[in-house]
């Protein structure tokens, strides 16, 4: 039997950073040094999961399943993985499921995906009460892993072991804004023996004495620190200035190690969240291929960028500060039947191209705008297509959770035009001719319905150079 392996992986780190110093000065407390990542007002765990997964460039190799792990699902009583499935433009045949709850869901998603040659999407958005450690030390982000038992895996799973116990370390009742935690020392004493046990069994099963790299992820900060000290890797761990990212945390940290690991190296992944799970992986020769490219889009590279956020803006985005809305009606809630009919368009940004004249229609339409030929259209996916700003405007009247709203008219490379909202960009730097790419976002939420659609953001530096001309 061929061992399950990671065929490809990708991380997504949102653009915004909250400096601890800024947090401290806003609340007149000692913020300390460091920063956390913050999802934009138009992002949630589903959109970040899409952003990570679409970087895998799945192409025609559609995964048979998606396991989506998060502690902050955008919906409950409705699967969120289906929106990820739709946004990736995957075939209807296939499985998509959420593992929503605690950070340990991440391990569940990874194991289920490994067992079924599927896709694991780990995404999280961590909050806490203003001034809390959860707020300061949390982070937002996502990672995606495509498993397969075929050749070409970047890393294979050698062994896994788990230990489980019921104890109260942290908890949150549904609907509550912030989690609560028991005394820190109690959690530490519960976790350490479980970790010790799981790690020992995993290493023994893998026949590995000391791993080259060790990844530790735990919502219990002291446990994470102690475990890292007790099980050092041969290669010293590089600290990531990201904050603890919940269910996405093990994925982001594993991705960061894969970004720099060489062939034939072992990785010990330890997750201590309501128990302990240890996995031992070994990289293959394939990891040497495309390493530079992966590093350029890697976790550390993404963390190196980013825009500083004011604390008041952070609070507004998290819904912790209710601001005066513009004197405009709320937009209408998207209706279920039209949204379902438009699945390929709304979720996967698929237009239509006229077979007779080649004109690209965004959104898809049955009668050609140029030659009026009827029902001779092919679907054309545009989500991966960069484009150029034809013209733009800053709208100070429009309804937006973060006014003003910038609209750009985008002409896509290879044809097609659409008006999109600009996000993650500094409006003052937009000009006619600015290069942009699409990103999956939440336009607004009305009556509990999240209006998912695409926006434009300034093209990541280096993306144009990667294109073949």
């Amino acid at each position: 039997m061929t061992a399950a392996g990671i065929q490809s992986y990708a991380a997504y780190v949102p653009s915004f950073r909250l400096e601890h110093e800024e947090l401290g000065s806003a609340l007149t407390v000692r913020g300390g040094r460091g920063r956390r990542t913050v999802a934009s007002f138009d992002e949630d765990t589903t959109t970040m999961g899409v952003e990570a997964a679409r970087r895998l460039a799945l192409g025609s190799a559609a995964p048979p399943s998606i396991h989506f792990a998060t502690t902050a699902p955008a919906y409950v009583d409705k699967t969120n993985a289906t929106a990820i499935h739709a946004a990736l433009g995957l075939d209807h045949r296939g499985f998509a499921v959420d593992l929503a709850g605690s950070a340990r869901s991440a391990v569940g998603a990874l194991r289920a995906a490994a067992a079924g040659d599927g896709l694991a999407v780990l995404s999280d958005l961590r909050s806490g009460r203003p001034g809390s450690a959860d707020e300061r030390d949390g982070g937002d982000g996502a990672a995606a892993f495509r498993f397969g038992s075929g050749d070409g895996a970047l890393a294979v799973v050698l062994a896994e072991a788990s230990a489980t116990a019921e104890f109260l370390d942290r908890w949150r009742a549904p609907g509550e804004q912030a989690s609560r935690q028991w005394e820190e020392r109690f959690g530490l004493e519960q976790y350490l023996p479980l970790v010790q046990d799981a790690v020992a069994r995993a290493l023994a099963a893998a026949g590995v004495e000391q791993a080259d790299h060790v990844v530790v992820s735990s919502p219990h900060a002291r446990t994470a620190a102690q475990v890292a000290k007790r099980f050092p890797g041969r290669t010293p761990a590089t600290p990531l200035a990201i904050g603890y990212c919940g269910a996405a945390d093990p994925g982001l940290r594993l991705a960061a190690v894969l970004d720099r690991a060489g062939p034939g190296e072992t990785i010990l992944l330890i997750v201590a969240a309501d128990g302990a799970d240890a996995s031992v992986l070994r990289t293959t020769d394939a990891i040497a291929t495309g390493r530079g490219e992966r590093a350029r889009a890697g976790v550390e590279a993404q963390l190196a960028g980013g825009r500083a956020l004011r604390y008041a803006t952070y609070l507004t985005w998290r819904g912790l500060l209710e601001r005066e809305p513009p004197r405009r009606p709320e937009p209408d809630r998207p209706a279920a039947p039209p949204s379902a009919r438009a699945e390929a368009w709304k979720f996967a940004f698929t237009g239509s191209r006229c077979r007779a004249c080649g004109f690209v229609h965004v959104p898809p339409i049955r009668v050609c705008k140029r030659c009026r030929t009827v029902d001779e259209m092919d679907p054309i996916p545009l989500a991966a297509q960069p484009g150029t700003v034809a013209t733009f405007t800053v709208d100070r009247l429009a309804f937006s959770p973060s006014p003003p709203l910038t609209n750009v008219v985008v002409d896509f490379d290879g044809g097609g035009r659409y008006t999109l909202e600009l996000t993650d960009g500094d409006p003052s730097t937009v000009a006619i001719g600015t290069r942009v790419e699409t990103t999956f976002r939440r336009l607004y939420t009305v009556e509990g319905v999240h209006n998912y659609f695409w926006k434009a953001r300034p093209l990541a530096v280096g993306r144009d150079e990667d294109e073949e001309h």
Partner: protein
Amino acid sequence: MASNGIRDRVAIVGMGCTPFGEHWGRSADDLLVDATQECFASTPGITVEDVDAFWLGTMSSGQSGMVLSKPLSLDYKPVTRVENFCATGSEAFRNACYAVASGAYDRVMAVGVEKLKDSGYSGLVRSNVAGDGTAPELTVTAPAAFSLLDPAYCKRYGVDPQDMRDAMTHVAWKNHRNGALNERAQFRKEVPKEKIAASPLVAGRLGVFDCSGVSDGAACALIVRAEDAYEYTDRPIFVKALSFVAGPANGPMDPAYDYTSFEEVVRTAKDAYAQAGITDPRTQIDLAEVHDCFTPTEIVLMEDMGFSERGQAWRDVLDGAFDLDGRIAVNADGGLKSFGHPVGASGLRMLFECWQQFRGEAGERQLADPKLGMTHNLGGRPGTCVSFISIVGKEQG
């Protein structure tokens, strides 16, 4: 585009127009009664009983012909309610004219009304069809959509943005100046250019003074066959052309569209001039009531209507070509800028200015013996809109 037109076949013999403004104390019903009563009071030969049929334009102040029949307590008359975005009032007029021209009715009234100030919001509020939540109209406001004209126009014609800003300012200044002379206008004050140029930004470079206001109002017109016109008034006005198109909405999808023109307006202008026998609009048209929803719109319209060469309208505007004493008086009554834009009423309000000008009743705004006038509405946004143009004249032939 083929249209035979109805040149000189129908005439307007009576009109009414309420003051436009924030009518907190008056309902849409009140405004309809006010406008129609004014019309009947000034047209002694016709009572409401004599009107064979009605066309009512309203975008969002009610549905069905009963919006009119109920407040007017009409005696079981046909009332057709129409809606066509910002051309709604003009659309009521257009279809009323065709009803008379067809011979189906002898006397028809076109009425338009809109009650916008009851919503509590700024700007237009419209109800959308249930959708998938992806249409840009859901999040892009009208001022933002029209603000796209400004940078696109500057880029295409190499116009210095400051010159364009000055031209936009001149449009607002001119229309407010005209409106100051109009007792029915919502805003009756001249506004200094410095104040216009420095007004708080709404979208792009459009400030508050680059946008038309929001108001309530109603207006109406009585239409009869041209040969019967003098039975009802000694100074009827004659319909020379009616042109309307609903665009295919290509602009937002077509990379070839550059946001410097409204093809819908180009087509309706061409058609209307052909119907009216106009060969040189610049010298033949005396006044034009155009859809100045936002200041750059009026600049682009001057080119689409053939009043200016391409890329030159900004200059003509600054030279005063469209001032009250210019070569064509554009928005002599103050335009949407001074009246606001109660959607169902605006088109008929524009005709009311032609009516007053041709009859010599325009007071301080009176032009010297105008003969031909145009009214125009644009509904939608650049690249995706409807356009209406009428040509009306003082005389037959």
